């Protein structure tokens, strides 16, 4: 067993071996998703609660499908993060759910660190489905799985992440995980969206779109979350598209067979032009398919029940 942790909270503390084990397991599960009967009995009798403190449809659906294909009973619990106003604390909510004896919590929360906080206070296995600006580990795994399927070996690949790095948990998870597998990462985005102390990431930060795209094997475009950031960080979508969007022309600067990815949902014409998103270089839908396999792998590894007791508190 190459993954002995109680939880999957983030990529930051995972070893190369742990990441590869997750990817290899996910790769095996991709086959199930192509079958006519897409169900295996692996997690029969196990209960997975999707504990979502922040609205989400795609990630939740992806986890739900993943659980169901493994024959787990999946239940969705959507709570407002401000449940404290209703008189219940986060831990009370978690302990109430725990009292119903689930095996796995899949948790999304709007605040960084909250999923770790939950994991530290429950015996139930926890999968982080996104916490604040911190991490979204299954997204990083599906990104890497998609790249590996397209490119083979990850070692030495040039990958660009472009967009709102500061406010992206996807970026953070990719940033911790990818270099561990030998990927050379470069980052680019509006300077209002690059963390002030980005040196801790150990990645090159590019000065312009040309530099970011040039010679890249993979380009990951991030979603611009205008509903969250308001107009202070970017003056307009038009301006964003001009300087930070991926057009056909800019894509031509990358390697010929460069793969374009995006965690979705896409803002067409803003960060990603339609003729790029719909081109055969786009891996966007492949990412979504792989998302199910990756989440099956995460639920499987935690859910088969051999991890309890092997949890190293210092390791996560």
């Amino acid at each position, binding site marked *: 067993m190459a993954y002995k942790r109680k939880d999957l909270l983030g990529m930051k503390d995972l070893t190369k071996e742990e990441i590869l084990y997750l990817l290899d397991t996910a790769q095996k599960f991709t086959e199930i998703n192509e079958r006519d009967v897409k169900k295996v009995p692996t997690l029969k009798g196990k209960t997975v609660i999707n504990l979502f403190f922040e609205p989400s449809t795609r990630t939740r659906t992806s986890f739900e499908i993943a659980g169901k294909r493994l024959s787990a009973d999946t239940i969705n619990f959507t709570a407002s*993060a401000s449940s404290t106003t209703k008189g219940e604390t986060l831990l009370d909510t978690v302990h109430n759910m725990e009292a119903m004896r689930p095996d796995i919590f899949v948790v999304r929360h709007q605040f*960084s660190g909250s999923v770790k906080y939950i994991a530290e206070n429950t015996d139930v296995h926890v999968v982080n489905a996104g916490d604040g600006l911190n991490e979204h580990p299954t997204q990083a795994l599906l990104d890497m799985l998609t790249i590996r399927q397209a490119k083979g070996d990850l070692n030495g690949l040039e990958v660009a992440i472009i967009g709102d790095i500061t406010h992206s948990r996807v970026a953070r998870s990719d940033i911790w995980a990818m270099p561990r597998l030998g990927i050379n990462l470069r980052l680019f985005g509006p300077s209002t969206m690059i963390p002030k102390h980005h040196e801790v990431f150990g990645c090159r930060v590019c000065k312009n779109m040309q530099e970011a795209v040039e010679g890249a094997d993979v380009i990951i475009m991030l979603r611009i979350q205008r509903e969250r950031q308001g107009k202070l960080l970017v003056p307009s979508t038009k301006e964003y598209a001009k300087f930070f969007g991926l057009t056909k022309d800019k894509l031509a600067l990358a390697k010929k067979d460069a793969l374009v990815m995006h965690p979705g949902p896409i803002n067409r014409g803003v960060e990603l032009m339609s003729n790029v998103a719909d081109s055969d270089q786009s891996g966007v839908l492949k990412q979504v398919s792989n998302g199910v396999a990756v989440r099956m792998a995460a639920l499987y590894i935690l859910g088969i029940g051999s991890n309890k007791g092997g949890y190293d508190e210092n390791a996560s």
Partner: protein
Amino acid sequence: MKTLLKNCKIVNHNNITEGNILIDGDTIASVSAKADEKADKVIDCGGKYVVPGLIDLHVHFRDPGLEYKEDITSGAKAAVAGGVTAACPMANTKPVNDNRVITEYMINKAKKDGLIDVFPIGAVTKGMEGEELTEMGDMTDGGAIGFSDDGKPVMTAEVFRRACEYASQFGAMVISHAEDKSLAGAGVIHEGEVAAITGLKGIPSECEEVMVARDILMSKLTGAHVHICHISSKGTLELVKWAKSMGYNVTCEVTPHHFTLTEKELLTYDTNAKMNPPLRAQEDMDAMIEGLKNGDIDCIVTDHAPHHPDEKAQEFDLAPFGITGIQTLLPLSLALVDKDVIDMKDFVRLTSYTPARLINKSDRGEIAPGKLADIVVLDTELEYVFDEKLNRSKSVNTPWMGKKLKGAALYTIKSGNVVFEFPK
């Protein structure tokens, strides 16, 4: 009643002498009494350091209104256990201390308990709304020693200017919690490396510095004594040094947590390391230590900010800012003496002598005949684990809970009465 403290190593801001202290009533009668001087009570200090009672210019006793976190009695109990015999509670009570009635309530409640003196800091503006000035004259008459809107800093420069002009007329300082709220935004920790790593939103140092610069210039404009609260960044210290070099009437304070810890504490998302201003980078912490060493920082205060465990046991973003500190002030400051950053005289200057001067209380801050008998007998070598048994505050929100500390008050004497003895 007479008390004799025998075999004392008496530390003042300017000298260390050996002698016997005779206390008569609430006053120090002599520091060179005979060892067999007749007294009602005799304590043999066994050559240990004896210092004037510590004066904490920045505490939150949550009384009135938020007594589930702390009240004046529990705050005072924690204070004397930490060698503190006078404290200045901030005005962010419920209701806000923006009038003489509340000011006097605080003072009288502490007086009734007889553990410490309380010198309240009144609000600058009514309800801390940043608009209308409070009745500073009347509040000063009632015992307020300074004015501050603390965590809700006066954002309008004109209001701050008028507050400076008005407060200084009554001999009170204006105390600035320097923070540009618009720049702080939704930040919860220092905007440094750890914010980038953890995805916790950052508060840049400049958020503090920009207001420090403004408030220094308001002191220049008005001549008022502006005291900068809990400085936390290297840049702030540079600004204060500049103000002092220009001769402006500016002083500042630092908390033990800002000279002991850095943003690294936040890598675990520990809400007991969440405070405002936040723990900053290593270079900032180093600057605080340098500032204490060079005398650029005037005093050490705690910003003792009790919160109920339920409030800290929340999502990091939702947990309130602040940690308790009045009982760990002594060991954390003595650690600087241990590391030869400062000496025992500096320790007394930073924790007692200068604070007394800043609030115009010439009856204390020194161990000398005629001064108030607020005295602490220290054991600088005592090592112990700071646990819930030793803790006297109602709250436990400190990163030092369960940690090993060195140095404690063996006896705390307030106005001639022994109000605390270290539990044996």
